[in-house]
Structures are given as structure tokens and as C-alpha cells.
């Protein structure tokens, strides 16, 4: 199996609103693929299309290759889309039995699913009596029913308390370590940064960047420097090769380069110019910086990143 999901040129309009434009994604087996974007950027639209809840205007997608009809392939996916949807008058177990019967994979692991989501003690309570956090955990339990090969999770930690968030993240990592593929949409940056292997960033329905999280984060092309004589430092810095920008921040300079920089070379360069650095630090970009840069209204920053 070359890939779990491949989607090409997915486009969806709601009237005049372009919810998703030419969206492409290829998800390899075993990866945790994060789809990141601000509210209304098309994350849920994208997931709704690949789960056949919404019909795309154009484009195509394939799960697990063309082995069976769409809905039987969907049974190999556990999915949580937006809000938890259950029958309020049924208990947790009964709701999961519905899911198991639909997936046609037996209901053997219902209790295991309730156990890992910490709902065992409330398994015979009606869904209508659940708190928001419990509803969300039941939705995650439902995705595990039938032991699916891939999970699609839309904002999985919505409505959970910090402890619940930590537990769900640990659970997602544990599931991923079993070799399952996970596609996760979120606007929580540290969530994606902490658990995902790949990421695609959406802005107003368009993908602005995608790739391995390590590649996107890994470009150490910013460095902070400071010295006793800031004027001399700034003058020397501006003569450096590959410098894109030089920003003065209070008592230090932030230099941005077009290439990856090494602190050793940096230190040697300034020392040769007779400047002794009092501060030298490469700034590892957090996903938050990249995200804000890419999704801000400043188009220039976005295009900078893409090219």
C-alpha cells in the first residue's frame, strides 16, 4: 500500500464563498498528518469531503487504493468530525454498538475503547447525561471501535480539560505507535507540533505550505545577536552574505538569512570584525511563528515562506 489517502484538486464553494480551493494531500501509512488553519480556513470542509459527508464541486480522493466501494472503505476509518454525534437516549455502550454494527467488525473492543477513554464507569449512562468532555471522549472511543486502520480527528481535544487534553494526546501517540495512520485537524498549534509528523497549513481554503513538521520547523535561518557596541554590530551584520532582514529589538538584533546558519561561523565572522558578541542564539522557529506568518493578512510574509 503506497498511501492511505490521496486527494487531488478538491474544491468546494458555498455560494460565493470558496471554502476549499485545489486542495491536494498525500498521506503515507503510519504518519500523523496535521491539517492546521485558523477558524474557517477549510479544515472541516476538507475532512467532510474525504469522509463523503459533503460532495466536492470538483477533484477526487482515494482511500487505501481502489480496493472496494467508498462506504466499505470508510469502515476501515475511525472518524470524529466537528461535534460528537450520538443518540442521546442510548447509553455509551449502546451508542458504540451502533457504530460497531455499521462497521460490521464485531463489538469485541467496545469495552477496551471505553477503558482507554476513561468512560468505563459511565458505560451504562445515557449519552444525554454526559458532560461536554465525556461526550468528546465518547466520540474518540467511537473512532477506535472496530480497530480501524486510519483515524480522522477533527479538533479531538475540543472541550477537554488540561488533563484530558494530555491524556488524549498520549492516546493519539500510542495509537500512532501501533502503525495506524492519523489525520488530525486543529487550530491548536502546539498540539500539531507535539504529535504530528506531517503538516499542511490552510488559509482561506488554500494550502499555503505542507511537508514534514521537522522540515518546516528545522530551517534555522534566524539568529539573535547582541554586543557592547550595537551600532558597529549592526553595520557589520548588514554586510553579511545572504542576509534577508535585520531587525532591531531592544538590546539585540534579529538577523534572518536565506540559508541555514551556524553559530560557529557567525561568531568567527563578528570576531574578525573586532566585535565580541555578548549574546548569540539561533532561533528555532515554532510552528506558531510559521503559522502566524503564513496565515496573517500580510501576504508578503506568506509568499516568502512558500518560495
Amino acid at each position, binding site marked *: 500500500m503506497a498511501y492511505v489517502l490521496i486527494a487531488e484538486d478538491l474544491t468546494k464553494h458555498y455560494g460565493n464563498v470558496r471554502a476549499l480551493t485545489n486542495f491536494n494531500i498525500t498521506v503515507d501509512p503510519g504518519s500523523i498528518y496535521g491539517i492546521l488553519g485558523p477558524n474557517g480556513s477549510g479544515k472541516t470542509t476538507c475532512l467532510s469531503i474525504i469522509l463523503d459527508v459533503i460532495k466536492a464541486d470538483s477533484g477526487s480522493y482515494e482511500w487505501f487504493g481502489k480496493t472496494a466501494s467508498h*462506504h466499505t472503505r*470508510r469502515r476501515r476509518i475511525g472518524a470524529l468530525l466537528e461535534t460528537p454525534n450520538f443518540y442521546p437516549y442510548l447509553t455509551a455502550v449502546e451508542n458504540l454498538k451502533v457504530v460497531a454494527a455499521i462497521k460490521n467488525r464485531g463489538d469485541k473492543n467496545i469495552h477496551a475503547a471505553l477503558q482507554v477513554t476513561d468512560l468505563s464507569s459511565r458505560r451504562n449512562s445515557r449519552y444525554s447525561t454526559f458532560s461536554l468532555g465525556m461526550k468528546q471522549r465518547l466520540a474518540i472511543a467511537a473512532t477506535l471501535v472496530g480497530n480501524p486502520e486510519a483515524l480522522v480527528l477533527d479538533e479531538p481535544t475540543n472541550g477537554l480539560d488540561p488533563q484530558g487534553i494530555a491524556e488524549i494526546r498520549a492516546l493519539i501517540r500510542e495509537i500512532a505507535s501501533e502503525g495506524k495512520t492519523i489525520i488530525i485537524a486543529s487550530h491548536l498549534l502546539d498540539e500539531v507540533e507535539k504529535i504530528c509528523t506531517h503538516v499542511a497549513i490552510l488559509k482561506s481554503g488554500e494550502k499555503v505550505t505542507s511537508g514534514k513538521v521537522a522540515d518546516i520547523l528545522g530551517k534555522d535561518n534566524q539568529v539573535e545577536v547582541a554586543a557592547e557596541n550595537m551600532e558597529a554590530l549592526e553595520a557589520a551584520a548588514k554586510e553579511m552574505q545572504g542576509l534577508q532582514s535585520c531587525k532591531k529589538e531592544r538590546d539585540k538584533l534579529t538577523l534572518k538569512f536565506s540559508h541555514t546558519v551556524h553559530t560557529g561561523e557567525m561568531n568567527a565572522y563578528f570576531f574578525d570584525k573586532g566585535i565580541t558578541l555578548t549574546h548569540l542564539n539561533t532561533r528555532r522557529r515554532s510552528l506558531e511563528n510559521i503559522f502566524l506568518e503564513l496565515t496573517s493578512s500580510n501576504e508578503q510574509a506568506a509568499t516568502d515562506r512558500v518560495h
Partner: protein
Amino acid sequence: MNRLLQIEFIKVKSYRAFWAVLGIYALTFIVVTSTIGVIESSARVSASAFFSFPDAWHHLASVASFLNILPAILIIMLISNEYSFRTFRQNLIDGLSREELVYSKFILIGAIALLCIAFIFVYGFTRGLIAGHFDELGEMVEKISFLFRLFVQMAGYMSLAALFTFILKRSAISILVFLVYVGFELSVRQFMPIGEIRRFFPVSIFSALIPAPGDISLVAAASLSPDLILALSVLYISACIGACYVLINKSNL
């Protein structure tokens, strides 16, 4: 089909409103059929004649045909629930096809109709044995085909109700529109001289499945042959299934 029925059964098994409506149906049926004996003097048929085989099946079916509104409302509740709890969407995500979403509801319609028929059969059989007169076994089942026609009639009303719900999605508005439509057809039938066509309206066809006992033809479609009425009923039910499928297939859930 077995799997779809099983899924629907899990959904309704602990749903109290489902059993409540069926309970009301059974209770109303028992009360109405029992009252016939009490007001014997003014009734067209006496209690013992009412439950006598083979006409008992015809009598019971025509009483039941006035209660079809209850299973129809039940189906509206069950389908609109799927929309308001967004569980159609979830069922689809979990791996049902859009076809299966529609078929599961029509399988449920068949199951509810069967359940009601089974109740009427057991009830009629018991009451017939106690109060009725019959000479031989063959007589008891002679007119049992009325129960089959009642099955088609119930399925017909419920299919129409299902179609309204697949269009309107909300329970209150669907029940209202369904009742108004049934009332509209009845009034059209009674008061408007629009000729032969009115006999072919769905509710007219469904109600003509069980003509009133004693050949008192209140129903406009009664002049059509029973076989034609049955065939048209099945056609209308199939049309409802087809229309529901088309509706759900093009909609975003």
C-alpha cells in the same frame, strides 16, 4: 438487510418514545374494538358479529386503517431524530452508504408494520375465539388477506411520512405537513370536483386498500379493482423509496 435491521433495532430498543407510541397504538386499538361491544345497540355490527371469522379480519383491518397516523408519526420521529442528532451524518462517516441510510429506514417501516400486524393478528385471533362464531378452521383464515392489505396500507402511510421527513428534516414541521396533506387529500376527495384523477392520489389509493365493511363505499377510489389498488400502492411506496434516495444522495449531511 439483516445488518441494517440489527442497527435499527439497537437504535430503538432503549428509545422509550418508540415503545410508547406503539403502546398507544395497541391501547387505542383495544379500546376502540372493545367499545363496539359496549355500544352494541347503536353500532352497525354487534360485538359477536364484529369478531366473527372470517369477517373479523376485515373489521379489524378497517379499524386499524384509522390508526395509521400513529405509526406514520413514529417514523417521522425516528427519521427527524437522525437529522437533529446529526446521526445520519455520523452513520455515513462510520461506513453506511447513502443508499443504506434510506433502505434502513424502509426496512424499519416494514418491521413496524409487521409488529402492528402481528399484534392485530394475535388480538383478533384471541377475541375471535372468545366471542366470535365460526364453524371450521378454514373460515378463520379465509379473509386473512385483509391483514396483508393492511400491511401495505401501513407501509404506504409510513413511506409517505418518511418522504416528507427526508424533505423537511424537522419533526414538528414534517408531522404538520403530513397531517395537512392527508387532510387536504380527504377534503379534495369530498368537496372538489376534479374528476377521475383524485382517485389516483396516494392517500386515496392507500385508504382504498381496505374498503369499509358492508360495501359502504365512502372512498372515491373504491371503483378501481382491488388488484389495481394494490399494484398502485406498491408503486407509490417504491416511488417514495426512490425519491428519498435521490434526496439523500444529492444532499450534504
